[in-house]
């Protein structure tokens, strides 16, 4: 039949496209050790520093190909491409000593000129993960050292400079539109792995070990990313070597000693913002404290994450953070205390539905902005607030509109969820004061502003430029205590999922000090020798 012939024609047509995309370099499929690890795939973009998608998995794949000046281990920053560094007293100038004997994947040597070029390029063109936008005044090289001069002193710039990927000058100096540069040269870096396969529509990647790597030898010969619709089932069938495990199925896998189950650090969290600038009701600190007492954070953890989360701390930094302060003021779930505080704040009067009344007789209503994913959370919060006499109107919009409204200050209460809670404590600035210091802060980072006292502002300013690690830690502890007193925002909870893997197959997994996913750490795939040696102190 006519249709049959048409079908045959199309089948022949599409068969070639079903083949894998050609690898950029012909390297041995299995790599040095022959060990193949399979992880959950998905399309996160072509792993060049400018073309990958903004979300986590894309960037960390790119990091396997491209090294940076510093790397992260379990405790903090370690020297990587930079053998050592010196920060000047005034915090404006950083001098990095660049390692020698490093080669790009195409064989050419890495020179301090490449470093200068990379930092300068990152200053001009925004990489997908861009940390040093517009903050660098001048970069220069002298011998095997590179000196970076900043526009103004910022303690967080060490981390930022350390994370910026070093790209080969001989390839990128001709590129004007880095986001569209997806030729095979775009993934030539000096990292421990090379990209040998990428398919956008299937979401598959393969990384093969770089046998000429300058640093600690890669333990895994080949890392394959394969998309699956159900990771736990795939892990059980042996198709994946690592999977996130939900609390419901965790007992089944915990019984089997062939699996190791690790609780992830809680670095992805939700917080409740209160718009002090635009909403009168929450300007009184007693009202904000009442809200903190009224919301049952443990209930949210149990009902929404089914126990796989840590309740939020008003000190903002999660408990797993390297700079988390020990003793800060907490606000346990206490509806009576909340009611008392609201009475004291002058909202004692109630209408016949039990909702408190404002000074002008109108009911105490707050709109709660959230995205479609957080509707259930918003509903639970609304129920708790209703119990203490505050009416909540839930407005659910799509994620990006929610971010836009938060950035524009168009909300009364808002729930936002994001990662990066484990990062440098400098983000406290944007959580507490919004855009004051950093005009380039991203949308969901800027939240409520205007609750900060002059003393707190001073503390924030000082930590930003403090170069001494111990003194900075002290300042950040004081900031956390002040934040807990002021209730600038209410972190609701930090998700703490679990991950399981089979140690018999591979046991090198580790967590970077500020990240929750073990498969994202570069050191997970390398031998722990040389600069990557495990630190015991």
């Amino acid at each position, binding site marked *: 039949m006519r249709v049959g012939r048409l079908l045959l024609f199309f089948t022949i047509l599409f068969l070639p496209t079903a083949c894998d995309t050609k690898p950029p370099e012909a390297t041995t499929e299995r790599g040095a050790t022959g060990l193949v690890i399979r992880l959950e795939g998905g399309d996160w973009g072509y792993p060049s520093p400018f073309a990958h998608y903004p979300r986590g998995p894309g960037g960390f794949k790119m990091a396997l190909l491209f090294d940076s000046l510093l790397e992260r281990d379990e405790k903090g920053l370690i020297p990587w491409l930079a053998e050592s560094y010196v920060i000047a007293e005034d915090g404006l100038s950083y001098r990095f000593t660049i390692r020698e004997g490093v080669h790009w994947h195409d064989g050419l040597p890495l020179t301090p000129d490449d470093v200068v070029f990379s930092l300068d390029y990152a200053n001009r063109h925004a990489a997908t993960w861009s940390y040093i936008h517009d903050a660098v005044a001048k970069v220069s090289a002298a011998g095997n050292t590179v000196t970076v001069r900043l526009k103004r002193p910022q303690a967080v710039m060490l981390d930022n400079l350390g994370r910026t990927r070093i790209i080969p000058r001989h390839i990128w100096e001709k590129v004007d539109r880095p986001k569209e540069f997806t030729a095979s040269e775009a993934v030539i870096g000096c990292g421990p792995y090379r990209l040998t396969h990428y398919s956008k529509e299937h979401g598959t990647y393969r990384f093969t070990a770089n046998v000429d790597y300058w640093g600690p030898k890669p333990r895994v010969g080949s890392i394959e990313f394969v998309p699956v619709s*159900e*990771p*736990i089932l795939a892990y059980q069938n042996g198709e994946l070597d690592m999977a996130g495990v*939900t609390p*419901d199925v965790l007992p089944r896998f915990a019984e089997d000693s062939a699996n190791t189950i690790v609780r992830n650090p809680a670095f992805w969290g939700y917080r409740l913002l209160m718009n002090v600038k635009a909403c009168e009701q929450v300007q009184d600190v007693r009202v904000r404290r009442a809200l903190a007492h009224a919301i049952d954070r443990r209930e949210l953890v149990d*009902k929404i994450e*089914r126990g796989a989360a840590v309740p939020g701390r008003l000190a903002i930094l999660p408990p797993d953070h390297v700079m988390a302060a020990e003793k800060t003021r907490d606000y346990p779930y206490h509806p009576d205390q909340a009611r008392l505080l609201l009475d004291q704040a002058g909202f004692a009067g109630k209408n016949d539905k039990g909702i408190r009344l404002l000074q002008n007789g109108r009911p105490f209503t707050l709109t709660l902005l959230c995205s479609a994913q957080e*509707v259930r959370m918003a509903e639970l919060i609304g129920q708790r607030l209703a119990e203490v006499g505050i009416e909540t109107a839930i407005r659910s919009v*799509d994620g990006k509109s929610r971010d836009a409204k938060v950035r524009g200050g168009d909300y009364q209460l808002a729930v936002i969820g994001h990662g990066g809670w484990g990062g440098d404590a400098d983000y406290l600035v944007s959580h507490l004061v919004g855009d004051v210091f950093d005009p380039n802060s991203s949308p969901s980072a800027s939240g409520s502003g205007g609750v900060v006292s002059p003393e707190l502002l001073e503390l924030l300013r000082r930590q930003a430029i403090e170069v001494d690690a111990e003194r900075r830690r002290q300042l950040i502890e004081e900031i956390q205590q002040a934040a807990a007193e002021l209730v600038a925002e209410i972190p609701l909870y930090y998700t703490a999922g679990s991950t399981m893997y089979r140690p018999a197959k591979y046991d090198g997994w580790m967590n970077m000090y500020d990240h929750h996913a073990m498969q994202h750490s570069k050191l997970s795939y390398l031998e722990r020798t040389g600069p990557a040696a495990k630190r015991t102190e």
Partner: protein
Amino acid sequence: MKVVELGCRETGGSRSFWRMLSGSGRMALAVLATMAMIALAAPFVCRHSPRIASGPALAAPSAAHPMGTDELGVDLWAQVAHGGRISLLVGAGTALLAGFGGAAAGIACGYRGGLADRLTMRLIDILLVMPDLPLMIVLAAFFGPSVVTIIIVLSAFSWVTTARVVRGRMLTLRERRYIKAAESYGAGTFYLLRRHFLPEIMPLAAVGMIRLAGRAIVAEAGLSFLGLGDPASRSWGLIMHHALSFRGIYYTDFWQWWLVFPWLALTLVVTSLALIGRDLERMADPRIRRRGC
């Protein structure tokens, strides 16, 4: 011939309607009526709230929770019953809006003719050939997820089929001798409408509306299933979306109630509407009507 027709129309009533339905049609009507009543009386039929957690999460069906609970501990029976309201609203809303709108357009075009008729026909042609689901997905994302939006969008698409069919019938009717006779006696448009056109158009419009309702309910369920529906509603498609987004859904047996019950409800409604529609179609067919009377 004319006497027989008139006789049919005058003696037609609920009793002969029920008799004219086939066995499957009757069963379908009964099922549909029951579900509609449950949906309307949802707050009274359900012990628990469809929004607030009232039991342990992911509990299997039991005496306390006849359909079990979802991941937040919210009673599933309450959710399904209230979800019926969304489907009812969407189905009835679209059917009425598009059905009456389409019928009106069809009558106007068929009877009047002229430039308006030609323009409307071109518009109908354009809307008929456009693939509706991709456009609905785009519009749902544009207008934002809300049940009212979905009704409006679905109606904007569906009025064309009814309009076309009605217009076709109007064209034949217009040429009938008794219509021409009535016109020459000075019968006004409203008289013709009431006495002659509407009784002929009604069955056609009814069939169209039933079909519209079915398609609208499926479309809304599909959009919600993709995650593009109203997140605050308890629509059946949304329940299934939440169930499928649950990590470990294939590995555990929670799907046996969490997914099965909304699925069952949706399938029952759609199949019942289809069966009734087919029966109505058979009844509205003038050849059969003449024989059956």
